[in-house]
């Protein structure tokens, strides 16, 4: 069972590195943000799998923090856009 967890975690890591391409390419900032959102979720999944496979429950806390903080960054990103537009309107 632990090997399966590990293998899936590795597979997700591979997934993530392929997703880097979208960060690289763009074409807009929003696409990059989307990719890093996916990274956040993937990181949560990897951490949970590793927590089960190496029996270190502390990793679950890290996954929790990751899940929460990814949302904060996304909100920062979206607010940046609305604020910039607001300044233009003035």
């Amino acid at each position: 069972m632990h090997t399966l967890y590990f293998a899936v975690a590795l597979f997700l890591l591979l997934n993530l590195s392929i997703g880097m391409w979208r960060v690289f390419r763009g074409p807009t900032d929003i696409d990059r943000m989307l990719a890093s959102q996916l990274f956040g979720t993937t990181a949560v999944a990897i951490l949970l799998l590793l927590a089960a496979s190496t029996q270190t429950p502390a990793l679950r806390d890290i996954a929790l923090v990751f899940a929460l903080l990814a949302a904060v960054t996304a909100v920062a990103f979206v607010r940046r856009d609305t604020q910039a537009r607001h300044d233009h309107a003035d």
Partner: protein
Amino acid sequence: MFFIAFGLLMALAWVRLQAPDVALAEAAIGAGLTGALLLAALSRLNSIEHTTAAPAYPQKSARALQLQSWLAMALLLILNAGLAYSILSLPDTGAGLTPLVTMQLEHSGVKNPVTAVLLNYRGYDTLLEVFVLLLALLSVWSMGTSQQQPEASPGPVLDNLMRLLAPVLILVAAYLLWVGADAPGGAFQAGSVLAAAGVLLLLSGWRLPTRLLDRPLRIVLIAGPAVFIATALATLLSSGRLLQFAPDWAGVLILLIETFATLSIGVTLAALFAGGRPHHPPDRS
């Protein structure tokens, strides 16, 4: 443009998983706070650049730039080769301080060795570091007040998300603080999660009521360092050594220091995000 490096930082956080305490701090700061800070700075920069025209600097020719780039790359390759050589020539196993740390752990009042190092064995480091944070905030404040931008309304979705997420973040911060005594967690991690809650609130257009802006805010900011110093003085008087905890008291004292340090770290980081000294009501004319 900088999302590449940003994604890299996130990836780094869990490459380091051999060290759960570090990964926790990096998850809170690398994934959340630094990104939010950079994005906010970029947004302010954009609004500045839209209002004024940038002066033209003499551009270097493409050829000179390329030459410079090759030169830098070559020098760095040499540097890196040297670094790699010294890393590889280190002995495969270093003794480290682990035996010492674990030997003294039962006297430290906590079960998590990292917390023991931070708050007990090398407490003065942490004391000074709390002051570094305060100093950074003071420098930012001395550069002027934060611009009171007219906020776009957050809209129902963001408003709901904020109402849900901010309490959860504060709860998680408290949990991390408590669990820090015997598992990865502690004041810095909890403080950064608390700061994330503050950043989220600031982003959603929430502001501190003005009557809390002046003295109450400052009191919270210095509470952590003040309690830390008070404990340090108390230990100095009772045992003759700075921050030398008696084993029976260590656990309680560490929790006390950490609680106030968490509050101060969280508020300091959130204030750093807001950037600039808060407005005083009379200043507004």
